[in-house]
């Protein structure tokens, strides 16, 4: 009996494992079948361009002629150090990011907090704040150019009705930063607000009630209950918005242009990507443009890593229950 059993078990186990193997192999093949489009896309449309961009960044490629293209080593990278305009663009981009990102997150979060209570018209306000995010950027740029027109524009006219200050040139050196930031806030706080609002509504009301019973005031509830529970959402929005804002290109380009992409934004909003765009498409310095892009890529990845590292100190993760199919 005992001998029989030991003789049978390996056979059964082998049969099972063979069937299991073929099944798991089938599973793998099916998995690959479903992932093929994405994997091909990942390789040809993401990895190759990034690596290709790096190779181009080591050359003096001008976008036209490959035979005259020479390997220039890290020349394009050292060139950045002496590129005064580029360095200024880096500083201005940093300023732009440091102002806009906290502002847009705070505004989105603040409006979400205001709308996160039992009240009439919540749906109306949510829709009203979200609508600007739907307007295509070219249309927004036109609207803002009109609205902010220095001569007899509605904003300046309204300001002058209240207090005569004359023409304010919003789309010019002096107010450039404020103008582009307002446009960015106008276009994007609605998305963040909708996301934060959903996050807030996911907080179980019992938690708030319990802390009120324990004698916490409204601020303490916010500080000790709501804010910690919202940190994962804040974190994700912070990462995406930092990376997106660092790549700002179109808002200054479109605001400062009249026809086509000809305009050069004023200094405070002459940002990194504007500089890259001009290097590549105005001056045909593909190699140099690619070098700045790679530098930006590394910078942003380091920034993202830093944020992920910092997240363990301030992002509060509850039990992760996603991925139910596991």
């Amino acid at each position, binding site marked *: 009996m005992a001998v029989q059993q030991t003789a049978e078990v390996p056979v059964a186990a082998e049969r099972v494992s063979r069937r299991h193997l073929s099944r798991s192999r089938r599973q793998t093949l099916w998995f690959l079948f479903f992932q093929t489009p994405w994997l091909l896309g990942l390789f*040809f449309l993401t990895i190759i361009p990034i690596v290709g961009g790096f190779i181009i960044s080591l050359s003096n490629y001008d976008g036209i002629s490959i035979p005259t293209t020479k390997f220039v080593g890290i020349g394009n990278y050292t060139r950045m150090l002496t590129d005064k305009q580029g360095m200024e663009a880096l500083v201005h981009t940093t300023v732009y990011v440091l102002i806009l990102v906290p502002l847009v997150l705070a505004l989105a979060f603040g409006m979400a907090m205001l709308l996160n209570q039992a009240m009439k018209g919540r749906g109306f306000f949510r829709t009203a704040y979200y609508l600007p995010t739907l307007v295509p*950027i070219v249309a927004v740029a*036109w609207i803002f150019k009109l609205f902010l027109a220095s001569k007899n524009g509605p904003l300046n006219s309204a300001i002058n009705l209240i207090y005569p200050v004359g023409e304010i040139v919003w789309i010019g050196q002096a107010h450039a930063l404020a103008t582009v930031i307002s446009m960015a806030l106008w276009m994007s706080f609605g998305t963040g607000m909708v996301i934060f609002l959903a996050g807030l509504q996911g907080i179980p009301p019992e938690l708030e009630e319990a802390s009120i019973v324990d004698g916490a005031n409204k601020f303490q509830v916010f500080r000790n209950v709501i804010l910690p529970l919202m940190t994962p959402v804040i974190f994700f929005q912070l990462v995406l918005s930092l990376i997106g804002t660092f790549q700002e290109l179109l808002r200054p380009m479109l605001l400062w242009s009249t026809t086509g992409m000809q305009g050069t934004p004023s200094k405070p909003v002459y940002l990194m990507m504007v500089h890259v765009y001009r290097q590549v498409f105005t001056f045909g310095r593909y190699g140099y443009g690619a070098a700045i892009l790679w530098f930006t890529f590394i910078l942003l990845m380091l920034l993202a890593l830093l944020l992920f590292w910092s997240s363990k100190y301030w992002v509060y993760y509850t039990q992760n229950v996603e991925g139910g199919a596991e």
Partner: protein
Amino acid sequence: MTGNAITTNTRQPFNSRKFFGRVGLYTLLFGVAVFVMLPVAWGIITSLKQEGEYSANPIKWLPVVPQFVNYVHVFIYQPFLKYARNSLFLAVTFSTLTVITSAMSGFAFSRINVPHKQALFQVVIALLIIPNLVTVIPTFMIFSKLGLTNTYWPWILWGLGASPFYIFLFRQFFSNFPKELEDAAEVDGANPLRIFVQIFLPNAKPVLATAFILNFIWVWGDYLTPILYLSDRNTTLAVKLQSAYIDPHGNTLVTVVMAASVLYTLPLIVMFFMAQKHILQGVITSGLKG
């Protein structure tokens, strides 16, 4: 009115702090709404002005006679519909393809168990934060060498390549499907492709629509890609709106541009109101989880 007051009173006595809190809240909310809507309202008003009116000195707040003819000029001065058709073609093609390929990938990530699946999914997460422009400009260089610029092929290829945000969205969505559904089908001998097409897709209509619309909105509004990849002949509304409505001296016909902007934006607004719930849910799902 009286009945209302009584029911309020029976619930709780008049609380002045709460009352003024509410007044303050609504004032603030309306203030922000007005601030948000003013530029749009000004765009619409301008689209109804005469060309001389929009820059009148002093400012003319409203048109004397609404110039609906501006909306006719949109079609006369430029082949608006032709460019709209180009935008529509690109938006529909890209959105359809990317929805299918992203759904496939999301399905595999959530329902097919293979080793190291989680590691591969980490790649999707990492892709979410790869700066867009890092790939856009090198891709342009490569595509132009391959002769793919001035064609719609880039949109088709990008669509076929799926998009990490929507892979994420579909994985999330398919993970919530009951396991029994596919177990039953598997017993009947259905393979994953049949399960995907016959069970998962038909039950995913809302999220498919959401992903389609969000992608549609993105491509329809996109300016950078068409200005880089397409030429005057086959470009989209976004590019034409930026530069095409000019008089013989090269001055922009502002009122016509505003009318064209209204017509250009309107389809997106209509889409939004038709599928508001789904769109917001899609924005939330792809923005909430990290």
